[in-house]
């Protein structure tokens, strides 16, 4: 059981890649939709 670094790297890549990909998708969709909504309806900006 001393090897198995391949499994470790695969799991970490899936976590970081999955969360990173989802984050980028969320940000890009937010930017795209923000442009179509008037600024006064964006309470955080």
């Amino acid at each position: 059981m001393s090897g198995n670094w391949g499994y470790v790297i695969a799991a970490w890549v899936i976590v970081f890649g999955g969360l990173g990909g989802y984050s980028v998708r969320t940000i890009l969709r937010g930017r795209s939709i923000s442009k179509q909504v008037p600024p006064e309806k964006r309470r955080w900006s």
Partner: protein
Amino acid sequence: MTTQLDAATQVLDSTGSRATRVIGVFAILSLAVLALFGLILSPPDASQGEVVRILYVHVPSATFAYIGCFLTTIGSAMFLWRGSSWWELVAYASAEIATVFTAIVLVTGMIWGRPTWGVYWVWDARLTSTSMLLLLLLGYLAVRRLPADHEVRTKRSAIIGLLLVPNVIIVRQSVQWWRTLHQKPTLLANGVGAKIEGLMLFSLFVGFIAIGLVFAWLLIHRFRLAWLEDQLDDAGLDAAIAERRAEGETTTSARKYDESLDVAIAESRAEGDRS
């Protein structure tokens, strides 16, 4: 000057704010610390070897998938009870994030299972109930995005949202209620303290902080995105109503014109008959 103005406009045209930028920076830093401790500084486990490093991301992901499900159930209940659209958006945002986290938990669990159990998948209670949870979350999202009336789909998805916490309880307790291949709880083992210590416990602790910050950052952004989507839906509905009204007014004025034309024709015919 123009570049600064462009940058400022881009910041406004997004779901970001000062708070999300601060959380984002801390999340990236804590993920770097997690990688340092989880992959380099913490020792291999006596029985699992290097594979234990998968658990530093797998266990926190599972915990925050459960937290996402709790938020969805609470938001759904508040929406059904009080009709609060704010809570409905919290439920929707956290359901989507919980779906991503649950999928990550299943995949990393399978990768951990191969060198530990010798197989990627077994139909034991923990794995089966977790896949049921993923299906339930996907069902929630599918119903929420149906091309139907907004009120109908939000109510139906909220009813599915209520089922998430009971399912999480089944997932959590499955290793206690049934004989499973999956190990029993390590951190909260029968309330008598952790079976893990030293740098391994610290790495897991860093994992909870890093994944927690990512979860919080995603939740804020996804909530704002859902808010924008709702605003856009409302604007589209207003435009459709205005268009229908304009069509109605055009039809009415055309009908009035036809009627006045008929009257004029009748009058001229009557005059012609008299002459």
